[in-house]
């Protein structure tokens, strides 16, 4: 993660949970896809913008103790796979929570937070994180 353009391109997904919905079969995708892998040709040109529900529940989680350098100040920190209310699975950090209180099935919602900082390029990345609902 280094260039400003690379981060900027993903703002709709990372800030607003914007994915896509197939106009042919109705399947929701997050992150967005350019065509539907189920419908293939029939779905081309029919993908619509779709904002994924920000509420969901924890499907699985882990507490990271061995963190990459960009997140070493956070450790230990929690990450989770969250099943949003419209069925889409999203992976992200889980914050504002006591680590030993996290459980599968726990209700959470997505909020916009600072993700990490790219020291070399001076770019601060923002995106969704989950908090207890």
């Amino acid at each position: 993660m280094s260039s400003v353009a690379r981060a900027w391109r993903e703002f709709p997904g990372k800030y607003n949970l914007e994915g896509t919905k197939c106009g042919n079969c109705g399947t929701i995708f997050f992150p967005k896809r350019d065509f539907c892998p189920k419908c293939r040709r029939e779905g081309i040109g029919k993908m619509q913008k779709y904002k994924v529900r920000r509420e969901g529940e924890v499907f699985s989680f882990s507490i990271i103790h061995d963190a990459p350098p960009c997140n070493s100040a956070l450790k230990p920190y929690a990450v989770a796979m969250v099943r949003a209310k419209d069925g889409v699975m999203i992976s992200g950090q889980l914050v504002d929570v006591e680590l030993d209180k996290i459980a599968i099935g726990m209700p959470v919602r997505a909020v916009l937070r600072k993700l990490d900082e790219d020291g070399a390029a001076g770019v601060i990345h923002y995106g969704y994180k989950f908090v207890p609902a």
Partner: protein
Amino acid sequence: MKEVAIIGVGATKFGELWGSSFRNIGIEAGMRAIEDANLSGSEIDCLFIGNMSAGRFINQKHIDALIADYSGMATKNVPAIRVEAGGASGGVAFGQAVTAVASGMYNTVLLGGAEKMTDQNDAFINTAMDATADAEWETGMGLTLPSLYAMIARRVMHEGTATREEIASVAVNSHFHGALNPGAQFRKEISLDTVLRASPVADPLGMFDCAPITDGAAAVVLCPLDEAKKHTDSYVKVSAFAQGSDTLALSQRPDITSFGATVATSRKAYEMAGITPADISIAEIHDDFSIAGILALQDLGLYKKGCAGKAFLSGETKVGGGKVAVNTSGGLKARGYPIGASGVAQIVEISEQLRGKADKRQVANAKYGLAQSVGGTGSAVTVSIMEAV
């Protein structure tokens, strides 16, 4: 399609090889395989090499040219091809080499796998490993590769198909065999307690649930089966090779307690070999994380869901355990995990077993052996089946 034989194998010791460079280990493994096949080297007409990250680890890209040059192949302008597929780099490279011989395009092919990791610090290496997951939507959001496997483990425990102790016993099994393998990085048995009490990496997984950082290389020589006898009496048949893909990000799968690519790929491989899982006596599986060992045995059809953990914990997976001997080489956990070399080292181990050359870890009367190599969280999987002749 031609039938294919493995006529020579070789590997370096796996470990922290301070005194050896990438080119040293790559050449050492290749020389051993060529010598084992009773060849001079001039017979080789194509060279494949599995490698994940020399560009990052030793700042050398174009390692196909490097290996062709230092193995003497470049003087005859032998084609050299580098293959990268994350953790499955070696397995996929093996598939390319088999395909090259089977198609008739090339006749005598040398396949190498090599990775030089310990010139870099752990954090740098882990970041490269993390890059085999989805860099935008997984690691870019703060996840790590170990945390993805940890979430698989958590879900498996939640659904009740394996306990924490059963998951930990995958590492115990690999270390048991590593102690018997002179080429392994860790030649020491460990107890279940050691795994359970190790410092946490990504809870619930700890240090001993994760494969180490390793330098090493492995190589095999392939030729058409009907020409194998010309070179050696000690060869094995490649009965099947299959490869499959799955979504890059784990979150895109309907189920994370199974790798769909392993299921699909192994079914294809059994069919190609004309056998069933019950015919397999030895399996080298991709235990980059302990939990991956549980998934592997179940997805390969060697155990039913919920039974692989019990097999590891009871010791049934050990040499002489009575069923399939799993990771007799020590696996990625104890033999070591020089990423691009591991998929090739698995083939070396299966070949040694089927030729009766595995010494203290020899499995008796083995007819078929299987190797499974995995990239990322099951986004690329290869399954190879070898047969004793």
